[in-house]
Structures are given as structure tokens and as C-alpha cells.
């Protein structure tokens, strides 16, 4: 079965780590360059970017990359990431890996209107 890049047993070679900073909370963590920004955060028990489906389908992990180079490693749902978003560095943290030190701001919104009675869903 497919495993996330870098976790296959017997994988050779040194693993590179870079620092990722979540600007909203000033949280930072060391992320492997072969894992997604979200996997890196989640694996270390850090918080800041909401963790949802981890498959590019739900958008709760959407971030604005403020600085640093990254690469897309998985397809992202077009419903939530437009061409314009891609061009502007607005991506799903579960689908991109850092190539160097990266800082991001969280923009995926967690909708909370649903628990308010009588509130039309918006």
C-alpha cells in the first residue's frame, strides 16, 4: 500500500528537516522535507493549523505561505484551491512539503455557525 513519502521501511539516506513557523501563534516545528506541512505538525503533537482529512479534500488546513519554497506533493480539491490561490501561495498544508524554512498563516476557516439555533447555514 502507498505510504506517505519518507516513511517507507528501509528508506535510505539522511532526512532533511527545516523549520516551519505558524505566524498566527508563533508556533514552530521541525518538518521533514519529505512530509507535508500538516503531517510534520501533527506528528509532533503541535497545534495551529486545523487538522482535517489530510487528503486535500476538506480545506480546513488551508494556509497562506508567507515565505519559503515548497512543493505540491498531492492533488488538492479544486473546490477550495483555485488557480489564483495556487499562484498566490494559498495552499492546503496537507498537500505541500517544505523545501526550505517556511512560514505560513492559517486561512482555512472552521465554520461554527451550525451550532447556533435558528441560524441559517451560511
Amino acid at each position: 500500500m502507498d505510504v506517505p513519502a519518507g516513511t517507507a521501511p528501509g528508506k535510505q539516506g539522511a532526512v532533511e528537516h527545516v523549520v516551519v513557523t505558524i505566524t498566527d501563534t508563533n508556533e514552530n516545528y521541525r518538518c521533514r522535507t519529505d512530509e507535508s506541512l500538516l503531517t510534520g505538525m501533527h506528528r509532533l503533537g503541535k497545534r495551529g493549523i486545523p487538522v482535517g482529512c489530510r487528503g486535500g479534500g476538506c480545506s480546513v488546513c488551508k494556509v497562506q505561505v508567507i515565505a519559503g519554497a515548497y512543493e505540491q506533493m498531492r492533488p488538492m480539491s479544486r473546490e477550495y484551491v483555485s488557480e489564483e490561490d495556487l499562484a498566490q501561495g494559498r495552499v492546503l498544508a496537507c498537500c505541500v512539503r517544505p523545501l526550505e524554512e517556511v512560514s505560513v498563516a492559517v486561512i482555512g476557516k472552521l465554520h461554527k455557525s451550525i451550532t447556533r439555533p435558528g441560524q441559517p447555514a451560511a
Partner: protein
Amino acid sequence: MGINGVLRPGHAQIRVLNLEEDAKFYREVLGLEEVGRDAQDRVYFKAWDERDHHSVIIRQADKAGLDFFGFKVSDNATLNKLEADLNAYGVKTERVPAGELLATGERVRFTVPTGHVIELYAEKKDVGNGLSYSNPAPWPAQAEKGIAPTRMDHALLGGGDLDGSRDIFINVLGFYLTEEVVAEDGKTQIAVWLSCSNKTHDIAFVRAPEDGKLHHVSYWIDTWEKVLRAADLMSMNHVPVDIGPTRHGITRGATIYAFDRSGNRFETFAGGYISYPDMHKLTWPIEHLPEGLDYAQRKLHETFLTVFS
């Protein structure tokens, strides 16, 4: 007497972002049997103990989510009657020709107020479960491959006008309400569980900020022990898990919520109680949603109300 009209959930067509990656996931990790592919490149699966040709269809798309969810009805006369009843209730329907889905008869298709496309059909080829109809063995080899649920069991769908969708299922399609989560006002339903059978639910709706959303498609496994086996297989295969293994207070089922390779949530579900239409509904005030979802840990899982595909 007994179950007639709408019989059971019959198929879910799910959009995936990478067809072969998810085909492999549904086949090898979830352990469904791939039963065919069509000219549109859709991949068809069935769970091992289902006898009809397929229950899950996946399709390559640029966004995740659910294309449609279908129910099998008892016969063509029922199909025609339910279509007429829907129309009389003000629900527009269209017919999808026989054969548009492999091995499947004509389908009646309509959109419910939460934005989901629902289908009814009477005919799908009986391909059997690999065991004889005379003196059958209890299970085939396929029953041990991957998680290997016995059937696709139900779906939870998210959208704004929960009341509108609920009413169509109850007033027209003959479903009954088994359980509900209600808001602080004591009446606004945040989520409803609806049954057309003796199951605690065949479909459920949750009030969500966006229409047409998939919360999860659920697969039935026989025992709590097999839920734990499913958890092992998920971890071995790096499947992102959302909640569980635990027991839902709601429906009392043992459960794991997890995600396919495209971020569509699925559930492996065992147990619950036997339900009848005359039974009083069970109510979960919103402040008890933590127990409702995760009875073991009483933990508020924010993703339940926020993560959809």
C-alpha cells in the same frame, strides 16, 4: 408487512483526486472487491457479503465529495409510485437510463434541499457473494482481505436545509427518525438519523454551512473486535483517522471515522440496536454531543461539525 418500499442504501458514487491511488485504497485497505470499470473510467466495488453487482463507485475528479447516493426499492411498481409521490410532493425527478451504471436498471434521480443527489432504483444484477445459494459456506476468502466490511451501510450528508431533506425522506420515502441532536433551543435539529429498515439508520443528515457535502460513507463490520482489526490496518497503511476506535452514544455503534486518500471520510461501524418504526426517538441535546459521538472518551471532536468533503 416487513420491509418494502425503499429497501436499503444501494450505492454511493464518490469523487477522488487520484483514481488509481484510491482504487488501490478501496481494494486493498478497505478490502472491497473491484467488480468492474466503465467507459467513463469509473471503478466499481462491492463489499464481500453484498449480492448486488456493486455498492461503491469512484470517479476521478478535481474535487472530492459525493456525486450521488442511491437506494434500492422493492420493485418497478414501487419505483414508479415513489416517483409519482415525489412529484406530488413538489420534488422534481429525472430518469437515468438502465445501463448508465453497470448492471443497474433505470434510476429515478432527484436533488434534496441539502443539495444532495439521491437516486432510487429497483434493479441491479445479483452477482452473489461468492458463496452458493444452496448449502453456503459462512464466508469466502475475500472476507479476510483488508478491513473487509460486509456491506456499505449508510451515509451521513451535510447541508443547510436539514429539515427539508428530512421531510422528504420521512413524508415521501417512508423513513422514520430514530435519533436526533438538538440545539440549545431544544428543537432545532443539528443532526438526524433516519431508518427505512431495522437498522438505527440508513441515512443521516447534519446541518452544515455548505450544501451537498459528504460527511461519511459507512461500512458495516460484524464485531467490535473487527473494528479494532480495522484500526490496526488503518495504522499499518497510514490512513488518517478522525475519531475512534470508540463507541458512538448515538446509535450505540462501535466506530472509527477515517479518510480515504482524497479526504472523503468513511466509517467502519459495528453494532447498534435493532430499531422499529414505533419506537420513541432518542434525543441528544447539543451539549451531550461529546458522548453522542465518542461515548468512551466524552471528547468534543470539533471535526464532526467542520470537516466535510
